[in-house]
């Protein structure tokens, strides 16, 4: 069929294809004028020959990139930080979800995991570090204290970190199991995948 469409095309045997004779100046086939030059002699898509070209929506590509590699800012403030460390360690292995690179610099982080009790005295530091994170950025409130103040109905404790920063995912538990944190991370990835990233980027 291909031969009928491109009458000048001479098929090159596979072993010669691998040797790439055209690179060495050998003319392996004869083409009429205005025929598209391609080494493809197969009728199905082959990324090795076509080049890695996939047509997709920009949102899908951008969100796939973002959600596959979410670098956390570990805002470890209390005992939840121990579970956060367990989530990062070998048994639970947050690397399976692309979030193993704990960045202790907010400039390089994508998602702040607020793990622990936020006191009023600490609140300004939490807000400041959130402000220092580059867009796009997300927040996971890990555990009862970060979500609502938890058992600390007290004069010293911020009653939920959502009073000072916007929270994307809340995790219940005191402290939550590492599985719960991984579930929150997956939930956040699903949320990121629904975002209209391309239009946001264009309007920014």
């Amino acid at each position, binding site marked *: 069929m291909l031969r009928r469409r491109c009458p000048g095309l001479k098929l090159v045997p596979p072993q010669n294809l691998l040797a790439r004779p055209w690179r060495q100046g050998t003319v392996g086939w004869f083409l009429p004028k205005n025929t598209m030059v391609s080494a493809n002699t197969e009728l199905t898509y082959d990324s090795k020959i076509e080049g890695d070209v996939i047509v997709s929506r920009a949102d899908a590509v951008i969100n796939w990139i973002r959600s596959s590699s979410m670098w956390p800012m570990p805002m470890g403030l209390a005992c939840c930080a121990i579970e956060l460390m367990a989530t990062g360690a070998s048994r639970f292995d947050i690397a399976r979800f692309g979030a193993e690179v704990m960045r202790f610099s907010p400039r390089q982080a994508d998602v702040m995991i607020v793990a622990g009790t936020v006191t*009023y*005295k600490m*609140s*300004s530091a939490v*807000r*400041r570090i959130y*402000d220092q994170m580059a867009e796009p950025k997300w927040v996971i409130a890990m555990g009862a204290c970060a979500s609502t*103040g938890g058992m*600390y*109905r*007290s*004069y*010293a*404790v*911020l*009653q939920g970190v*959502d*009073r*000072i*920063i*916007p*929270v994307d995912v809340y995790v219940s538990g005191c402290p939550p199991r590492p599985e719960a944190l991984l579930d929150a991370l997956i939930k956040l990835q699903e949320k990121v995948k629904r975002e209209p990233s391309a239009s946001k980027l264009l309007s920014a």
Partner: protein
Amino acid sequence: MPAALDAVAALKGGWAGVTDRASLDHAAVNVPASDLPGILGLLKRDHGFDMLVDISGVDWGMNAKPRFTVVYHVFSTLGHEYVRVAADCADDLVPEVPSVTPLWAGADWHEREAYDMFGIRFTGHPDLRRILMWDGYPHFPLRKDFPLAGIDTVLPDAEVVAETKTGAIAAPMMGGPFVASSGEINMSEAEPRAKDESWTEKRPKP
């Protein structure tokens, strides 16, 4: 005679105003606040009470006279004994006692904490700032007239306040505080959200 009782006897003999203090465990004395550095210095120098274990404040209540007491525990690392020294603050509005930081450098943070929680001033302290609450917090949380939930206050950082329009709020107690003594309260029924929905978010989140 154990060194602690020996020391107490010496104190009562040598200083006016030193009296016995009711105690179930260790030797204890009440002393005048102005004599604190001299008495504690004497205990440290002559009686081997070389370790300051802690400094604590007591608020006896709004109507009590005197209202505030400062309690010191000193320990003899060789004799393995404690002496408890208590001093009432003369002024109930601006309670003051002399600092013992020249005797023990470790008294520094103890005194800052007592100041932070009770507002007891330690005269002669090198750097009497708050240690737990933030600078500029207007209340003393462990005083009897301070509610457990707290009092509405502005947050420490003005920029955060401008950005978030929020402040330190009186925490929602929701029927609490809950104590776990058996028989008095059913903890599963008393779980805050199970009963009381008075506190719900009405304000849009930032």
